[in-house]
């Protein structure tokens, strides 16, 4: 325990710069959006107390906005607003609107009617009634709404890292991808603390007496502006080309760290989610991205893979990894899973991914078409000799594989299948496996070596020389450490790759990563 804490603090110490930047970005994002949400929500809330007929629709729309899943909302924003701060702020502001509008409305309509009437009877005009009576009396309720919005925003702002807007999400999601608990905590703890601190401060503000509140109200915008400005402090660098890397790629030896150390590549980098990266590259928001070599969007967006001429990306051959206990419990399982081995090469996988990611065909259909084309498909036997739990990470290729395995198990064995797809990143999936939540999922040799086994740099250089030595090493180590078995590889190699738009790569004459470095260094 002690040792563990030590390392968390060590990690935070090491990454203090990044942590500070991310925290400031986080606070900035939270408060810029909150500030704008107050600017919009407060007048709108007041407006619907005057036009009560509109209150239903306005509150309804704000309520619907709130129910849109955050990632989906961020996704919608990209075509319109691109990536980075703008869409993140807009998304956050949309989430913050409901509590602010709703509380302004309830606060003002809740003011004692006879007090309002007295104000009118004494000769106040409607603005005087609003500012001297309604707003001060509604203020505790309005502040409660702002408080709720703040806490929501601190939470949702972690997702901003998906679209390259920074914030503590970079650590959290990077940590999840990298199976690095310290990294997760280094992001999650400050985020939680921010939520608690802001909640506490606002609760104090709420409890101040009426008079002080009205003075406090003037201080609020100033404070909000100040906190908002944090966001703009760190972003004072630029460059020729912009790279968008996933949080996972950022922290990996076989990712950005390797690019820096082996190639000496220095490029202006922003952190972005895999889900929006390809599109952002296509729309010229980004020039270089860290994709996967079999990704369907490679084809869809006309991107080219840069040759890894120094060999920093280790092989990522896919194979199902299974709990040994499950293999014993379900003796027919291994044979069924191995039906797929050697059947899918890189270009086939890219094609399959293209069909799901770009043509939006369902993974189920793509899987079935493939199995039928290769004469592997058999209708389900409707077996009930046991239930096999299949896991998959949260991207298309894994969904396709999970569907294929599901069909194969149902067609070739007497087992039934339960799928737990969309288990986030490597850490979540692998934890589910070792904790007996799933029986198997498709994993990649490189991920096993680096993210799960966390092999030393020396071992990595040694083992990654060939695809077989990597496979043999992870197979041996997984068996020893986790009692998890690597079955036969499926065939394709979904390795990391740097990619660019075909057009741009051609015009700058960039074919390899070394070419890219040369281009960046040339003035």
């Amino acid at each position, binding site marked *: 325990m002690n040792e563990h804490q030590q390392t968390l603090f060590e990690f935070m110490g090491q990454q203090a710069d990044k942590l500070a930047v991310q925290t400031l970005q986080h606070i900035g994002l939270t408060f810029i959006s909150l500030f704008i949400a107050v600017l919009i929500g407060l007048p709108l809330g007041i407006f619907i107390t005057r036009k009560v007929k509109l209150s239903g629709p306005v509150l309804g729309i704000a309520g619907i906005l709130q129910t849109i899943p955050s990632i989906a909302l961020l996704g919608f924003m990209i075509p319109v607003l691109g990536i980075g701060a703008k869409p993140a702020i807009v998304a956050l502001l949309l989430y913050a609107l409901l509590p602010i509008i709703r509380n302004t409305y309830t606060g003002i309509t809740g003011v*004692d009617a*006879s*007090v309002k009437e*007295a104000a009118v*009877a*004494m000769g*106040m005009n409607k603005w005087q009634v609003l500012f001297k009576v309604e707003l001060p*009396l509604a203020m505790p309720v309005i502040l409660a709404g702002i408080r709720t919005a703040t806490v929501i925003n601190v939470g949702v702002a972690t997702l901003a890292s998906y679209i390259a807007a920074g914030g503590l999400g970079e650590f959290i999601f990077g940590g999840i991808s990298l199976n690095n608990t310290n990294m997760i905590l280094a992001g999650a703890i400050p985020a939680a603390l921010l939520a608690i601190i802001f909640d506490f401060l606002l609760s104090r503000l709420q409890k101040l007496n009426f008079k002080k509140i009205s003075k406090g109200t003037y201080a609020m915008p100033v404070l909000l502006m100040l906190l908002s400005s944090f966001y703009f402090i760190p972003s004072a660098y630029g460059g020729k080309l912009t790279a968008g890397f996933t949080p996972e790629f950022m922290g990996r030896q076989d990712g950005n760290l390797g690019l820096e150390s082996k190639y000496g590549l220095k490029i202006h980098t922003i952190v972005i989610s895999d889900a929006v990266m390809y599109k952002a590259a296509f729309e010229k928001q980004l020039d270089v991205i860290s994709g996967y070599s079999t990704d369907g969007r490679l084809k869809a967006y006309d991107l080219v893979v840069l040759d890894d001429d120094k060999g920093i990306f280790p092989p990522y051959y896919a194979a199902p990894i299974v709990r040994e206990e499950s293999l014993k419990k379900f003796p027919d399982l291994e044979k069924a899973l191995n039906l797929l081995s050697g059947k899918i090469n890189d270009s086939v996988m890219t094609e399959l991914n293209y069909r799901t990611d770009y043509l939006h065909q369902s993974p189920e259909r793509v899987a079935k078409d493939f199995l039928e084309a290769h004469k592997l498909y058999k209708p389900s036997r409707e077996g009930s000799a046991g239930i096999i739990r299949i896991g998959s990470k949260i991207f298309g290729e894994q969904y396709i594989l999970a569907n294929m395995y599901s069909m194969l198990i149902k067609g070739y064995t007497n087992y039934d299948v339960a799928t737990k797809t969309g288990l986030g990143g490597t850490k979540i999936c692998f934890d589910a496996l070792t904790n007996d939540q799933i029986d198997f999922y498709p994993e990649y040799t490189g991920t096993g070596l680096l993210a799960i086994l966390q092999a030393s740099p020396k071992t990595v250089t040694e083992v990654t020389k060939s695809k077989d030595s990597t496979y043999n090493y992870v197979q041996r180590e997984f068996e020893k450490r986790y009692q998890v078995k690597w079955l036969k590889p499926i065939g394709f190699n979904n390795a990391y790759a740097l990619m660019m738009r075909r057009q741009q790569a051609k015009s700058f004459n960039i074919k390899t990563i070394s070419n890219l470095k040369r281009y960046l260094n040339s003035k």
Partner: protein
Amino acid sequence: MIKVDGISKQFGKVKAVDAISFEVQEQENLILLGTSGCGKTTTLKMINRLIEPTAGNIYINNKNIFEQQPEVLRRSIGYVLQNNGLFPHYTVAENIAIVPQLLKWDKKKTESRTAELMEKLHLDKSYLHVYTGELSGGQQQRIGLARALISDPPVLLMDEPFGSLDNVTRSNIHKEFKALDELKRKTIIMVTHDVQEAFELGDRICLMDKGKIVQSGTPAELLFNPVNEFVKGFLKDQRLQLEFKAVKLHDLWELLPQLLKKTEGRSLSSVIDIWTALESFKFSGEESISIINHEGDQKQVSFEQLMAAFYQYKNKQGHE
């Protein structure tokens, strides 16, 4: 001073006020009396344009109020709400100073006027910086009154100002109310559903029912010449007491026996009502009381003589 001319108010299908007309003279105290829901509050609120009428006109000092800017009009009319409507986020002093603030008085003037009113209304200065939620119902009503009186408006509208008080407190406040010089100079329209209160405080009474005025007149006129059964029924419960309150000693002057000899000591003024005279028998314990009229004539009457004169008077009224 105030002329209400055929005023009506319709809420959807409900005719809350139905073509009402009345006039109030300067410095008169008119009472709008009636059961709950008969349209008293609605009538009152139309006079300071809190409610816009569906028909009719209202003139204050011969000026049509609908041709004035409502905010300006309201600042010249004191208004005491049915349930006081004090600002909970303001202290007592700030509550009282609302209208002066709107009228942009300087601070000194507001403060001295506040102090003056606080004293007249028997409110301790120590309450000035207290929030109104901490005060008793009676104190709150006095502050509501102070707030309405601060700018010394010529017209005062009061909607059941003593509604939420117990009987003892209420009759004390009634006494203070009658004694308050501030109010003697004002034209007052006051709403109440309490018959006693109406008789005690009103110069004239408009008895309302279902949005209409059934009868208007002095308390004595209503008592002794009711226009219909409704009026009679309305006053029935406390009839005797009301009669004692409605009749003043000088009304009976002719019927009281001549004074034989002048007496020393205090005499009661003939403007007081019989109820008060009867009370003074109780408190003084004397056999007889002495009364003096505005011409300086004095009379000495016993309890029996007073009652006899009262019944003669009543008989005469009934037959007129």
